[in-house]
């Protein structure tokens, strides 16, 4: 703020001012619904998750094996060339312990989450997922982990077909 200004506009309110009706509010709740097609690359990726396998796409130009897979290489900007299975093991690239749920409500037992660099994919190629069956204090960057799958009959072609990743 410039020292030339002497007044600073805006009328602060507390949440109580709203709840008590001190100021008028108008409420509305959207009811929009969506159904996304999963596309070509994610389609195969999810199909293979249902089979208990992780698949990526390889670009022969830069030799990278990409997970999540895409039908184009964003660096070489050309179509990717082939499907490559990667392993269901990997190494923690970075991790966190979340005491907030998806709506920012407090939760008592933290959710351990991580970016996991996958064995068989190119260095630094990782996916976001949850950790499980692990002492939060022991989680560290570089920790070896493996995917724990839902039973075959319960899999539906979703990233959550992997329940979580546990230490090896």
């Amino acid at each position, binding site marked *: *703020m*410039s*020292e*030339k*200004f002497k007044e*600073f*506009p*805006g*009328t*602060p*309110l*507390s*949440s109580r*001012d*709203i709840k008590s009706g001190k*100021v008028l509010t108008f409420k*509305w709740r*959207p009811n929009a619904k*969506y159904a*996304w097609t*999963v*596309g070509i690359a*994610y389609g195969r*990726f*999810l199909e293979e998750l249902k089979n208990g396998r992780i698949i990526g796409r390889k670009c022969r130009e830069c030799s990278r094996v*990409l*997970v*999540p897979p*895409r039908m184009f290489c*964003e660096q070489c900007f050309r179509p990717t060339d082939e499907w490559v299975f990667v392993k269901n093991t990997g190494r923690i*690239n*970075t*991790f*966190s*312990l*979340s*005491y*907030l*749920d*998806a*709506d*920012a*409500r407090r939760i008592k037992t*933290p959710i351990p*989450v*991580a*970016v996991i660099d996958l064995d068989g994919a190119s260095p*630094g*190629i*990782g*996916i*976001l*997922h*949850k950790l499980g069956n692990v002492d939060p204090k022991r989680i560290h*960057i570089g920790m070896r982990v493996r995917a724990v799958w839902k039973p075959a009959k319960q899999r539906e072609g*979703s*990233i*959550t077909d992997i329940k979580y990743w546990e230490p090896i």
Partner: protein
Amino acid sequence: MVKKRVAVIGAGITLFRRRLQETGKELSHYAVEMALDSAEMTRDDIESVVMGTAPDAFDGIHMKAENLLDGAGGARKPYTRVFVGGGTGVFAPIGGWWHVASGLFDTCLVVAEEKMSPCYPHPQTAFRTIWDPIITRPLEPNLVWIFALEMQRYMQIHNIPKEHIAAIAVKNKGNALDHPSAQLAAKITVQDVLDSEVMVWPVQRLDISPPSDGAAAMILASEDVARKYTDDPVWLDGVGWSLDSAYWTNRDLYFPEYVATAARMAYKMAKIHNPRKEISLAEPYDPFDYKEAHHTEGLLLADKGGAPKLTVEGQTFRDGDQPICPSGGLLGVGNPIAAAGLMKCCECFWQLRNEAGKRQVPKAETAVAQAWGDLMQIGTVTVFRR
């Protein structure tokens, strides 16, 4: 390529608060009036308007720039919205710069508005819709996850203690005590930060900026027109921006390469060869304390991993060798997303005009402002000079 040198000749800003009674239009109007008054202009003097405002989901008004138009002074004028998530506030003056530097307009009013309070009980719910719907949303992530993951990676790669990161929150909340618009100005200690509630480890309550309502505005003019209004213009001499891949789990998060790309573009344009020596003060984007350090490195103002120590040693204080966030930043002044980024540009303007009062950095000649956003993808950079 650049047809006209671009000057900043006026700026204004509202209070930043968790909730303001005014609508987004009314807040925009406040900020614009202040900016026009400070430049001794009226709306008739404005040839074009650029609106920067971030996710529609917070206001709950789809295509909200159109809703804001009348309050922002844009009716019946060439009016454009720019939007790059959290990077929007610094991208808005870049958009204004295109208008003037191209020779298309002699004046451009730049407005940034955000109201996060309409989305209740917490605007975090709106962030649920930014994730890839196929492979990320089913995991029910919270937006803070990605910052915590980045912070962890940054701290571990460089072996930075949490105490050094916390010192940045202490500095910025303290600096904000001198900012009349500030929402969370406070005198706190490193221990307060370390003792605060854990949100998403290693992010704690006092590491993070708040949701806010607020607006800011800035007036740009071509050199010859600027001289008609003021003897004391500030020059917008460099702009840069860059976006990295949305596949953020395929990138190493320890260094924001996209910020460095944007900074190099802006420095080259402003003919800055040695940013550490030539830049008097910096306003890097600090929605989290570690982000200030991360972005200071991205702006090439510190070695990789070297930024937190600058604050521990006091060099980034207003009276230090490299003042960083003299405004108090998002951590102290607040974070109405787009308005927060433009607040940083306004701070550069007031600092270079020697109008920053208690916040004044001595001998301010050149200043850089930067913002960041999307899925840790965009860097937006502006270089100002007196």
